[in-house]
């Protein structure tokens, strides 16, 4: 083993979050949908996959269904919020996150509510069970690579340009004969699909989920990643994921009296975040601005 299990763990998280961040960037940076409901897709994916796998469904099928189920919600969300943009859309989608959180918490018969779901099985594919962290790392790396590649192709394709055009000026795009609603829901469904996939990867990696894993702090984390990385930059999201997941880990090595350990780390982390923004005010690789 070249890297320690801890490093492996961090890398696994990084790869899971790369999928999550890139997929959010697809909606937010490329399509201009200031979607704060992404964390809900992530949660929906995690729960769907966990519950199905516990019922005995093969892992890959559970994962795909988790993605699809999340993207159904993506479709619904776009349908409901079609008329909103900018901060208003942000608020509505934030509301959606909270509502999904509430449902996860209160639909106890299905989700076990606050008790969470323990003992989620590790993935097993074609009879091979992904058991150790090293194996899991390879597995998420694979899924991550495929997912990012697909999303990369999408944004680089003419279709991706349409998404960017929609971000910049939807009215103009419509009079050019493009169905912007269609674009938005396609983008959101793809985005939600991959969020669902990463939720599934998370659930089966940690093997325990509860609603708090899919709430504000997660939302802030992925939003920060996308924005620090730069809107409409996949490279940015990848780099920022690594930076933002890793920085707190470096801060662990600080030699601090245990009484202030947690808060000092967090405060430092926040300070570093602000410093990065001061240095790169459009994010690390960002070029575009949202209105």
């Amino acid at each position, binding site marked *: 083993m070249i890297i320690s299990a801890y490093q492996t763990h961090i890398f696994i998280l990084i790869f899971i979050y790369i999928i999550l961040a890139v997929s959010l960037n697809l909606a937010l940076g490329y399509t201009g949908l200031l979607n704060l409901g992404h964390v809900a897709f992530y949660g929906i994916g995690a729960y769907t996959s966990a519950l199905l796998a516990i019922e005995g469904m093969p892992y890959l099928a559970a994962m795909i269904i988790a993605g699809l189920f999340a993207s159904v919600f993506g479709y619904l969300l776009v349908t409901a919020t079609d008329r909103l943009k900018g901060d208003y859309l942000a608020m509505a989608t934030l509301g959606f996150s909270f509502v999904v959180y509430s449902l996860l918490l209160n639909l106890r018969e299905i989700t076990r509510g606050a008790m*969470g779901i323990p003992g989620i099985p590790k993935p097993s594919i074609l009879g091979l069970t992904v058991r150790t962290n090293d194996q899991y790392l390879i597995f998420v790396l694979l899924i991550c690579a495929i997912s990012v590649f697909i999303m990369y192709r999408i944004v680089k394709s003419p279709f991706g340009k349409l998404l960017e055009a929609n971000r910049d000026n939807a009215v103009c795009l419509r009079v050019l004969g493009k169905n912007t609603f269609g674009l938005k829901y396609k983008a959101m469904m793809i985005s939600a699909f991959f969020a669902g996939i990463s939720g599934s990867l998370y659930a089966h990696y*940690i093997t325990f989920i509860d609603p708090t*894993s899919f709430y504000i702090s997660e939302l802030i984390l992925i939003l920060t990643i996308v924005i620090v990385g730069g809107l409409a930059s996949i490279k940015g999201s990848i780099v920022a994921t690594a930076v933002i997941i890793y920085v707190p880990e470096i801060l*662990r090595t600080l030699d601090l009296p245990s009484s202030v*350990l947690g808060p000092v780390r967090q405060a430092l982390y926040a300070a570093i975040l602000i410093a990065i923004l001061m240095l790169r005010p459009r994010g690390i690789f960002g070029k575009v601005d949202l209105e």
Partner: protein
Amino acid sequence: CTDTEEVTEDTGEDTITVGIMGPYTGGAAVYGNAAKDGAMLAFNEANLSNVEVIVEDTKSETKEAATAMNKMVSVDNVQAVVGDLISAATLAAAPIAEQNQVVMISPASTSTDVSDAGDYIFRTIPGDDGQGIFAAQTMSDAGYTKLALLYTNDQYGNGLATIITEEFTSLGGEIVAEETYEAGSSDMRTQLTKIKDANPEVVYIVSNTPDSSVALLRQVTEIGIEADIYGSEGLKVGSILELGDSVEGITITSVSPESEEFKQKYMDEYGEEPPAFAAQAYDAATAIIMAIEDGATNGEEIKDKLYEMEFDGASGHIKFDENGDVEGGYVLVEVQDGAFVTLEE
């Protein structure tokens, strides 16, 4: 990240690393810090030359708990861990500990799921069922028949509420109202209004975030609920005493109290009464220390020793059953003259 607080120097030979993990930021930070202080007290006292202690913050989050456990297991090579507190965090970290044969002793996770979390997973606090049954019986014995429940909508609250409901109704009582609130929120007026409206004889409150506890008890007074107030051990935090007269007479069901000896030691060290879970953490640490003193050098050996040992700890008699759970005694604690007073049975 080595915590150097008065811990013995690393002698270099066969050092055994022990971890402490818990929430030092986030909503449950108060309890996290108390547990850490309690555990450190034990390690400092034992002053073992071959034990090194490290501390990791899990921010009241499950993902952080998994990360902290991974880090301690593979970087620091810990053999045993005191923590986590929140059941969800414990459950997220447990599979990692189990897989790496690292002992984990939670001083505070009461979820029934923890029993099944694995061979290496122990706790020095009895599960929810214990406290729930005790609370229901106590209230029933005291002659109450109409109970209102107010609990935080999380693992702890739900777990406890379910058991109390079952037990209290089976004892012939009636649940006249059941209300929840979001952990950390500070506005429960309408829940309390509904409870007041249901006219219970007694209200049982489950709370594990101090800010909510304080807000809640204040509003109980303001709204003018006449029923007697009982509550879970989470209410046993110093801050609620500042509410003065209005918390007088509140009864808290608590795991058997810390020994006077521990209380004194804790007061000497930290200048305040031990908050909830400090004694349990002290005992968790003590159990690990005893195993090591007994010659255990790795997780597996510590685990084996734990299943065999039996001692009178700060929080009561400790003997782990086959699930790694302890039998706990419970007592009633009442607020009298601005202090927590343990009632004699």
